[in-house]
Structure formats: structure tokens, C-alpha cells
């Protein structure tokens, strides 16, 4: 059974029809990268997977449970889905450690000692053992994003969503975050990543999904979608991303 199954998903903001019928699945242990031009609906798709956006039509089925059903236990479903945001969204009034323990304590009802142990282990996993007592304002963007990853991991999620996790970072800090994500992928975490980092997608993804205009245009192994795209729209996009200063030959 697929970990996530999305069926004919539609989402509009007012008259703006952002998702126009998305069907797609994520298997257990799979790393899926979603690429596409801005405004193509990829972030909205990601935010529909844990219902931060409510779709107008279609279903999102996580581990066999339809979370678009109004009677589903959404909070319970969300515990299994970690999310990492473009703007980190760390809790500024809590230390790095407390950011990682607050939901464990209040949602999972773990004991203080256990939450503390899990949080420390995950902060070590993202390479921030020495920053556990720091507050978000005292951390660099890259460090904040790694704390955000540790915070999500502390809930022992079955799936991790990454919404352009490196887009708000200074270029020299992108590498640290991508390294952590690569390690996570190697450890077998199921990941759905919206990204502009083509090198990362090519190297780490099991499957790349190219979206444009609210539909999935093309998907498959990175070697196919990024290396040898079938669709003209994919080719145009990749040309722009991979070689932004390229001048189209005039015929």
C-alpha cells in the first residue's frame, strides 16, 4: 500500500485554480522531488498532503486513511507527517531543545526525560548538539532550518514534507541543510521535497515530478525527467533553471 495516495486533487484560491486534478502516490521509503516554475502549484500540493490547505475536490489518503474526510482525526494523522517550511517557522520563544520537545510532551504525552532524549538525539543527527540551548534568533538560517528538521523528526514521522527548505537561505548555508536531507534519505526516510536544487533532486530523488500550471506534466526517475525530459515544457523549464543566461538561438 502506498504511504500517500492523492486522487484527482483540485484546489482554488478564489478564482485562481491552482491544482487542476493531481493524481500521484508516494511509496514507503521513497524520495520524491517536486520541481516546476513558481506558481505551478507544487507548494500547494505539498500543503494539501497534511491539509494545511483544504482541497475543494479529491482525496488525500495517508496510510490508508482519507484525511480529507471531515470526520478523520486530522491531528493524529499530522503527527505522522513531519513538515519543514521555507521560512523555518521555529518557535522563537523556545530554545532549540524546547522546540523539539514541546510537541512530544503535549501531543505524544512523552515524559520529560524521554522527550529530552529524543530531541537531543535528533539535534545531534542534524549536527547541532552544541546549540541545544540556543534560541532561534541566535542561530543562522541554516542552523534554524536544521533545528526545524530535528523538531519534525522528534515526532517519529512516517513521512517528511519539505517546502523549498533551502530557498530562504544564504547560498553558503544551503549545503549544510542538503547534507542533512541526503543523510535522512539514505537512512530510508520517506520524503516529499519541493525544491529548486536540481543537483540534489538528481542525486537523491528516486522519482522527480515536474509540475506546471497545476498539473503533473511529467514524472519518473531523475535521469529521465531531468536528464532526458520528454515534454517540451519540462525542457524549457530546465533550460531556464540550469542555464539562466542562455540565449535562445534565433532561427
Amino acid at each position, binding site marked *: 500500500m502506498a504511504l500517500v495516495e492523492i486522487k484527482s486533487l483540485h484546489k482554488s484560491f478564489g478564482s485562481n485554480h491552482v491544482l487542476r486534478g493531481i493524481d500521484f502516490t508516494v511509496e514507503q521509503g521513497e524520495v520524491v522531488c517536486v520541481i516546476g516554475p513558481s506558481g505551478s502549484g507544487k507548494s500547494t500540493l505539498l500543503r494539501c498532503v497534511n491539509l494545511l490547505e483544504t482541497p475543494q475536490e479529491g482525496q488525500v489518503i495517508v496510510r490508508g486513511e482519507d484525511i480529507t474526510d471531515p470526520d478523520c482525526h486530522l*491531528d493524529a494523522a499530522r*503527527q505522522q*507527517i513531519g513538515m519543514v*517550511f521555507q521560512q523555518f*517557522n521555529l518557535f522563537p*520563544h523556545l530554545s532549540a531543545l524546547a522546540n523539539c520537545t514541546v510537541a512530544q510532551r*503535549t*501531543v505524544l504525552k512523552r515524559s520529560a526525560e524521554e522527550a529530552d532524549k529524543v530531541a537531543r538525539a535528533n539535534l545531534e543527527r542534524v549536527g547541532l548538539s552544541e546549540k541545544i540551548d540556543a534560541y532561534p534568533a541566535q542561530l543562522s538560517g541554516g542552523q534554524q532550518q536544521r533545528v*526545524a528538521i530535528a523538531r519534525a523528526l522528534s515526532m517519529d514521522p512516517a513521512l517528511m514534507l519539505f517546502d523549498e527548505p533551502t530557498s530562504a537561505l544564504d547560498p553558503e548555508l544551503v549545503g549544510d541543510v542538503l547534507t542533512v536531507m541526503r543523510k535522512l534519505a539514505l537512512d530510508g526516510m520517506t520524503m516529499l521535497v519541493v525544491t529548486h536544487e536540481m543537483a540534489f533532486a538528481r542525486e537523491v530523488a528516486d522519482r522527480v515530478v515536474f509540475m506546471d500550471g497545476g498539473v503533473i506534466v511529467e514524472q519518473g526517475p531523475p535521469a529521465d525527467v531531468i536528464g532526458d525530459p520528454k515534454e517540451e515544457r519540462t525542457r524549457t523549464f530546465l533550460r531556464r533553471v540550469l542555464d539562466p543566461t542562455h540565449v535562445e538561438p534565433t532561427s
Partner: protein
Amino acid sequence: MSTSTQDVERKGLSPRQRAQRSRWIQYAVLVVLVLVAAFSADWGQIVSVFFKPEFIKSTFQDGVLQALVKTLEYTAGAFVIGLAGGTLLALMKLSQVGPYRWIATAYIEFFRGLPAIVVFIAFSLLPLAFPGMTIPWDPYGVVWLALGIVASAYMAEVIRAGIQAVPKGQVEAARSLGMPAGLAMRKIVLPQAFRIVLPPLTNDLILLVKDSSLVFMIGVAADGYELTGFGRDLANTYSNLTPIVVCGFCYLLITLPLGILARRLEARTARTR
């Protein structure tokens, strides 16, 4: 024709010299006014009416410090009620349930629109209107209630603004961790909201210190007098303003440090943003 050439033609002064001359004139006017005031005033009379030493002494002996403590007690209790009530009203105003929003809006608009003294007069008449009705912890209960009702209306708007100033991403992060809405509000949003509203809440506290002077309208017993009631009583007894002046300084003793605190907190908030 430009102004600068006009000036040169007219006076032969540069703009800097003109500004300097204007400043000298302002200083001169000030010095003259101060001298006139100093020489024309009857200092002996002023001191004997406002700062008479033996009345300053007897104001302290008669218990101005107890009155100061009463003012602080009345204010503190009202602040606690105002904070709790204000938070509740702010949450009601942001509620999904329409009637809660309407009730909160009506309450806030009503008590913000009324002069506080009207509320106090109404409270003073309550025992007449409902014979036998008592509010516990006399006189604290009735004072805290009357002040707290007014304060909660003011604080509700401040707290609501604070809650709405917390970025939407904070709620999304909390909800994505599986926190229910109420828990996210309690653990994530409210702590940040109170940080944001600390400076304006301190200003509300200053207003509350001053509003506590209206307590005498309720008609508390003499041992319940706060600074204003105490000062007024004593000033009437002595037929002299000195006790009121002493009480006035006692208010400044509370409000000036609070004002400094509010400005520091504002500066800190500005820095961390």
C-alpha cells in the same frame, strides 16, 4: 526667484545665521518669562499652600504610605482581572462562533466608550438598586470588579492585536506537529502574543493606576482610602493643598518608572524585530 537669493537681498544673513538668531530669540523669551514668573509670584504663599512642611509631615503620619499600598493593591487586582478578562474577550473576538464575537465586540465597545467614572457611579449605586446584595472581600471585591471590567475592555483590543501579530507560520508549524488548535494557541501563539503586547500593556497599567483614583466614587470606608481619596480627605481637613501634592508625587513614584519600563520594552521589541 528662489528664496535664498531673496534672503541674501533682504538681510544679508546666511540660512545658518538666521537659524542661530531665531534660537537666541527663543532663549531670550524663555529667560524673560521665567524671571517675570519668579519675581511676580508670592513664594511664601505658594509654599504654604502647596508644600507646607508641617502638613507634609502630618500627611506621612496620617498614613499616606498605607494609601499608596491601597492604590497598588487596587491596581494589581484590577490588572489581574483585566488581563484574564481581556484575554478571554480577545479569544472570543477571534472565535469561529459568531455569537461569541458579537458579545465580545458589544462588551468592548460599550466599556471603551463609557467614561470610567460612569461605571464607578453605577457600582456605587448597586447596593441601592439591589438591597442586600454584597460583593465579597469588601472593599477589594467591588473595586477590583469595577476597575477590572473597564480594564478588560481596553486590554482585550491590545491582546487581540498581539495574537494577530503572531505570524501565521507559527500556527502552521504547531498544527503540522499534530497540535490541536487550542493547544497551539496556548503553547505557541499566546506566549508570543504577550511578548508583543508587553509595552502597550504596561501603558494600560499606567492608565489603570490613574483610574484607581476613581475608587472614591464607590464610597469605600476611610480605611480603604487610596491616594486620591486619602489626599482629598486630608486636604479638606487642613484646608490646604499640601496632602494632595504629596499624593500626586506618590502617583508619579509609580507611573514614571512604569513609563520608563514601557519605553525600554518598546525599544527591546523594536530591536528583536
